[in-house]
């Protein structure tokens, strides 16, 4: 089934068109991005049962107006729209917005290209969470919660969660009239087990571009989360050093996203904040590595157009180890004289658009996981990534993983180290990749920040990779 367009977008489109027409009488270029998003969070834990639809990350209704005036851009965002509001918005833009910091020197841009595009597209789903109903969803989460607690008396909690968002976005510019209707979901299990005053956690998420059919994918999540939490009770701190490592697809995803992806966001090129700009056309990774960002896979960050009305695309960032391209928003592409790649994304309608990743991953290789493990003489298997931080300027790595399993002579010893911090220089890590498995997995369970703010839904992943990594 296709995700339906929201009534709000449908019914108010004539008003947004009228607002755009009024803006275009005064400004050389203007655009409007309107959004109507609804979603729900469900959770069951020892803390209780929760159903809410109060997170602005999931529930939002409003619009952003972009105007081009005096060679630069300015934006107004709000959520009231009616006939009276049209003239009020025009007044605010003219008398307040364009007078803000009016005397300062401003960046100069050309009018954006605006080739005609008209469409209304939707993603697919099998089961509508709203149709499935709150009762059935909570019952599924309650059962998973109970199953997790019953597995071992050392488990003090088994938090089960489901969140979905269904959104419609409308983009209007002089020549574009596009609507997209998208639904994604994430389900997760977090098992907790104490080790003295410390609480060890095992985490297993799944994500989907779709609806409540995600519950068909959660099969092993409870077992996996509980097993990991219990194993971590016996974990030890790792002696810092350089190790031969095999990374799980989730860990590969974090390396792809945090270590390299942020560095090819081209608004960083405009600011002279990205080392990648100087390495275009050069080897930055092993020839085994090809890296993508975009809509070639279906996951939580798949869409048809970005928040500035640029069509989504599949950008090949690294091809066989050579850095080929970055990703960009409309304004950055304008500053750099390149074609925007459809990566201009907003946290919500109240925020500015920045260059942001979508679904970012390494392509599959040809190796088998068992061969990769067998090839490790003295090393670690890294899994359960928890967080990471970008360093586009200097390509420093900071990624955290929860589990490092010891491998000796090609076999797991059963010993686990935690927590682990990956450090070092990004190209050193990427060039050290010697094996790449033959299947990829992506996961869109998290949100990505720019610096420490501007959270957007992303997915990342790839194959199992074997590399040499500094661990602390």
């Amino acid at each position, binding site marked *: 089934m296709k995700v339906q367009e929201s009534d709000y977008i449908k019914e108010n489109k004539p008003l947004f068109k009228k607002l755009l027409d009024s803006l275009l009488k005064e400004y050389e270029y203007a655009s409007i991005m309107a959004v109507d998003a609804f979603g*729900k969070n469900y959770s069951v*834990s020892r*803390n*209780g*049962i929760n*159903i*809410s*639809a*109060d997170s602005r990350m999931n*529930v*939002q*209704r*409003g619009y952003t107006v972009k105007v081009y005036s005096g060679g*630069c851009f*300015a*934006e107004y*965002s*709000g*959520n*009231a729209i009616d006939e009276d509001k049209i003239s009020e918005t025009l007044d605010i833009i003219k008398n*307040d*917005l364009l*007078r*803000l*910091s009016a005397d*300062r*020197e*401003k*960046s100069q841009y050309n009018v954006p290209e605006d080739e005609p595009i008209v469409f209304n597209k939707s993603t697919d789903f099998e089961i509508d969470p709203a149709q499935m109903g*709150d*009762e059935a969803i*909570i019952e599924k989460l309650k059962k998973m919660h109970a199953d997790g607690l019953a597995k071992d008396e050392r488990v003090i*909690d088994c938090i089960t969660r489901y969140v979905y968002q269904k959104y419609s976005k409308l983009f209007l510019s002089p020549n574009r009239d596009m609507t997209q209707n998208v639904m994604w979901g994430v389900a997760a299990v977090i098992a*907790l087990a104490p080790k003295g*005053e*410390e*609480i*060890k956690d095992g985490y297993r998420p799944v994500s989907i571009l779709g609806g409540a059919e995600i519950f068909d994918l959660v099969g092993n999540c409870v077992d996996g989360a509980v097993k990991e939490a219990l194993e971590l009770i016996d974990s030890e*701190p790792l002696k*810092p050093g350089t190790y031969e490592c095999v990374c799980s697809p989730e860990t590969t995803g974090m390396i792809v996203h945090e270590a390299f992806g942020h560095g090819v966001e081209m608004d960083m090129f405009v*600011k*002279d*904040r990205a080392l990648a700009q100087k390495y275009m056309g050069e080897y930055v990774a092993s020839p085994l590595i090809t890296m993508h960002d975009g809509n070639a896979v279906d996951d939580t960050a798949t869409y048809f157009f970005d928040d500035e009305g640029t069509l989504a695309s599949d950008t090949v960032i690294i091809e066989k180890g050579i850095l080929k391209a970055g990703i960009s928003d409309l304004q950055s592409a304008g500053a750099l004289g390149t074609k925007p790649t459809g990566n201009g994304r907003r946290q919500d309608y*109240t925020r*500015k658009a920045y260059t942001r990743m979508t679904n970012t991953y390494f392509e599959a290789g040809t190796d088998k996981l068992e061969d990769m493990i067998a090839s490790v003489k003295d090393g670690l298997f890294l899994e359960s990534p928890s*967080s990471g*931080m970008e360093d586009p300027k*200097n390509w*420093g790595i*900071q990624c*955290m993983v929860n589990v490092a399993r010891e491998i000796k002579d090609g076999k797991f010893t059963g010993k686990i180290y935690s*927590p682990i*911090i990956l*450090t*070092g220089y990004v190209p050193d890590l990427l060039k050290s990749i010697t094996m790449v498995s033959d299947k990829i997995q992506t996961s869109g369970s998290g949100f990505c920040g720019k*610096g*420490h*703010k501007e959270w957007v839904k992303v997915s990342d992943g790839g194959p199992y990779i074997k590399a040499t990594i500094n*661990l*602390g």
Partner: protein
Amino acid sequence: MERYIKLLKECGVDVWFIKERSVLSNELFFIKKRLDMRRINDSKDSVITVYTDKDENGTRMRGRTDIIVAETMTDEEIKKLIKEAKYAAQFSLNPFYELPAPEKSDCIVQESTLNDVEFSKIADMFADAAYEVDNDGESFINSLEIFVEEHKVHMIGSKGTDVAYVKRLVNGEIITQCKSLQDVETYEQFAYDNLATDDFKRLLKNTLKHTKDRSFAKDKPKTGVSDVIISDAHMPELMKFYFARGDASMIYPKYSNYEIGLNVQGDDVKGDRLNILYEPEDPFNDEGIRMVERTFLEDGVVKTICGNQRLSYYLGIPQIGMYRKGKMPAGSVSLEDMKKDCIHVVNFSSFETSAMDGSFRGEIRLAYGYDKDGNVSLITGGSVNGSLLKSQKDFCFSKEIQNLDNYIGPVAVKLKDVAIGGE
């Protein structure tokens, strides 16, 4: 608000809470010295909480669901959402809990020097302050984002709560760059609830200096164990562990063993004892509870547990709301005197503390290494990976105090024997 109350009654909802919130913001985005984008955001919506009470096998239960509604929604749309929330609340049933005693108050304008100036001028005042100190020549502002916000909040509850407040704040991020020896940058966030342009200038001067020093830094630390100084904006991140452990949401499910009277640092403490006051960030929390200064830890002993209304009720503690801002007294050693035989990390890629296991970790972007005689070397790269559960026995807090939006207290703490990853 009257409209929402009427619609709630029409839907048969007897117990409810409404939080109406509006934000007006002026935003400036700079690249180098040029203004790259201006924005105004003017948005308003309301969070409506719908409660449903039910008897389940003889036990009184209470369910709740929250929804967001916008003024531009039609009555029919809002009623549909309320009815759905009322239905959903039947399936989010938890043991019954009383709502907190109602508060009533005229609209409180949060005291701030930001109220003394015209709203539309504030962003420019901070931009002027930034560029006034951007005169080093080698180290300079790469980019700057300034957000000036005015928040208006009005909360009404079916039990009689009717409170409101207005507050202004300034926040943003700044990136400084230096190309002297190596091309490097430093990222800093800022947040002020006053017209703190002098504090902002000080932050920027320090950031410019750190960036220049990082440009000359080449060496990783030696792998092993070292005393480490954590300072400035990393202090509230470190102390966040105690706030999380002292919250009902971690105590009720037994993730945390905190209880009134617990000595959280244990008996064999050789260093400074923890003294933390809970400080109000807003006049009222999201549940309409008045926020006031309270003692959280006194000489390491828990004096107050905070948390949301439901979990506080279950724990049988006063419903005082959740606190995220802390105030700590000055320590006894100056930051300068701490700088011996240790590593002082002034900039991490990201510094994180886990509420679950007390671990703290981060990749070093710039640190100053001090030998026994106080001689200094520049460090970049490598990592810090420690545990507060071990380090809390030997805290050494600085005499110097800093005043951040979420923390008032020592500028720095020295931690013993922290694992260092490097060469």
